[in-house]
């Protein structure tokens, strides 16, 4: 069966696309899936660092589309899971080095070998975004609970729809329960209602993410971390499992239960 391509996107930068890509990819590999991650952020390569693979890069995505190497030569095997690969971005080129048709071709080729293709989208709505979504079947939109990030998420949802990528799912990242309880962070249910989108998961603000990024080890592999648990749940939901929302806190959980298909 041909693999499925997901694009991880957001509009606003710095909300957690790369973190999500690394964790979802690693999580799926842990489940035994064959996964390839594409860093589509050409010129600002960083998925390699988050995965701890920065020292292994020889070729990159631009080398592949320009024919300097074969696709298999550019794929870097993960340290932990042999079924996980990374196709790195080029660091010294710009976004126009790849076009949407080439991305479609590339993802179609990868579909043959992998169960999941996960594309880490650059910030913005320009060429890099168009490239990243070109080959995608499904989209995940990442936001933080801030007006500016949710606004950009709304714009992205509209653009995805216009480009024929329907029914994206939402991840709300960097959620702080203490602030929600104080009334200083937007409620999860309000954001979902305003964006009219399906919730895929909620990831708490967690300094373990910074520590794990420092080490190049995705947090999804760490036991007993709230953010790791959140990404693990997201992974299983992508695999079609019905996983209850992370037990961030009783009150919040009860409020959002109704909203996320825990019927």
């Amino acid at each position: 069966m041909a693999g499925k391509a997901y694009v991880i996107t957001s509009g606003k930068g710095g909300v957690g696309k790369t973190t999500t890509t690394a964790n979802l990819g690693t999580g799926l590999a842990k489940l035994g899936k064959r996964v390839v991650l594409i860093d589509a952020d050409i010129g600002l390569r960083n998925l390699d660092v988050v995965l701890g693979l920065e020292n292994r890069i020889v070729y990159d995505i631009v080398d592949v589309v320009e024919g300097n190497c074969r696709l298999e030569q550019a794929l870097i095997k993960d340290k932990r899971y042999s079924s996980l690969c990374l196709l790195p971005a080029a660091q010294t080129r710009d976004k126009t080095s790849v076009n949407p048709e080439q991305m479609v071709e590339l993802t179609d080729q990868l579909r043959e070998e992998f169960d999941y293709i996960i594309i880490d989208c650059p910030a913005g709505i320009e060429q890099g975004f168009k490239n990243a979504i070109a080959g995608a079947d499904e989209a995940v939109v990442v936001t933080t609970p801030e007006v500016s990030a949710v606004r950009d998420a709304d714009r992205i949802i509209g653009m995805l729809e216009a480009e024929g990528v329907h029914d994206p799912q939402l991840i709300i990242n960097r959620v702080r329960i203490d602030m929600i309880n104080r009334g200083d962070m937007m409620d999860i249910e309000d954001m979902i209602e305003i964006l009219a989108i399906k919730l895929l998961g909620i990831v708490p603000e967690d300094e373990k993410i910074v520590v794990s990024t420092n080490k190049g080890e995705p947090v999804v592999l760490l036991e007993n971390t709230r953010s790791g648990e959140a990404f693990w749940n997201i992974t299983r939901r992508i695999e079609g499992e019905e996983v209850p929302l992370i037990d961030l806190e009783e009150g919040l959980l009860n409020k959002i239960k109704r909203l996320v298909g825990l019927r």
Partner: protein
Amino acid sequence: MLDIMKGIFNNKEDVSSKDVAKERLRLVLVHDRIGVSPEIIEEMKEEMIEVISKYLDIDNDRIDMDLERQDNSVALIANIPVRRLKKKR
């Protein structure tokens, strides 16, 4: 005077910042989604009122006209109290 002003400001702070955020978000999205700025809407409102006033005697102070989100679409909702029909000129 200073106390009164303090009172006003304190009252404002009672509204939690999440509600402020939610309202600002709603408003900005309404305009984003149809790609029209608040100024243009304001201009349009004034022109519409002008046109309607040619035919109807309306209560300018109680006009309520705004863009509203309805699920995934945006509607222009207007409530324009009419006093009486204007005499045909």
